[in-house]
């Protein structure tokens, strides 16, 4: 199934590896911050409500 990349295998595979890692990183960081800020905001809103 793997295509024969010949003498350029290192260049092609490293391009895909670097790009996919960077794309996964930005998706993961965005999801993590989204979750954290959402729960922090809920906490602050609860606190503000209880303080009247």
């Amino acid at each position, binding site marked *: *199934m793997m*295509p*024969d*990349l*010949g*003498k*350029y*295998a290192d*260049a*092609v595979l*490293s*391009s*895909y590896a*670097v*790009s996919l890692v*960077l*794309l996964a*990183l*930005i*998706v993961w*960081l*965005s*999801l993590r*911050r*989204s979750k954290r*800020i*959402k729960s*922090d*905001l809920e906490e*602050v*809103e609860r*606190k*503000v409500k209880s*303080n009247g």
Partner: protein
Amino acid sequence: MSLNSLWEYANPKKFIQTTDRVLPWFAWSAALTLVVGLVWGFFFTPDDYRQGSTVKIIYLHVPSALMAINAWLMMLVTSLIWIVRRHHVSALAARAAAPVGMIMTVIALLTGAIWGQPMWGTWWAWDPRLTSFLILFLFYLGYIALWEAIENDDTAADLTSILCLVGSVFALLSRYAVNFWNQGLHQGASLSLDKEENVADVFWYPLLVAMAGFVLLFIALVLMRTRTEIRARRMRALLARERMGA
């Protein structure tokens, strides 16, 4: 949709409600088109007669370069909306887009260097397009750092908007550097309305799908990150109000 109804989305609550519905669609279609485009390009396209298998790098390099420039142009539009109409959501959308645009620039620079080494015999050259892309990357860094450095959201939005206007010169230069200075190693546009200039169909169709995947991923990430920035801003406002009341 009239222009007036478009401004409704400048309301943070309305923006979050609407994106609640559309975000999953963008996210799943981004994942699907990216997988289809990259798998098609990597596994099911032939080698180029001159560049061999390195032509497969095009499915990452061209879409990421495209988004690196267009992310900045999107930031330019939202920054102008902030300057003219003072809609917070637009300033926050620009802030949300910057790290995504920066990652796209890094991917374009790295894949370009990896591709350039076997084709040009060098990882890097001070070629007009490469250099303007490096400067664009530095602008992204500066833009993100400026947002982080200023505590007051409105002041940060004002100053980063001005920086964005200045950086737009380099975003446009990155796109047209090859045309402006007819020199350097980098080739002209791979994609053009002129059929003669385009890459062959066998590479072009998977490239179109990969580009659609990058565009959809960018939209999904910017929507998600803008929602986060809206919530973070609300949290800062509530905490400030609490401190004032205490």
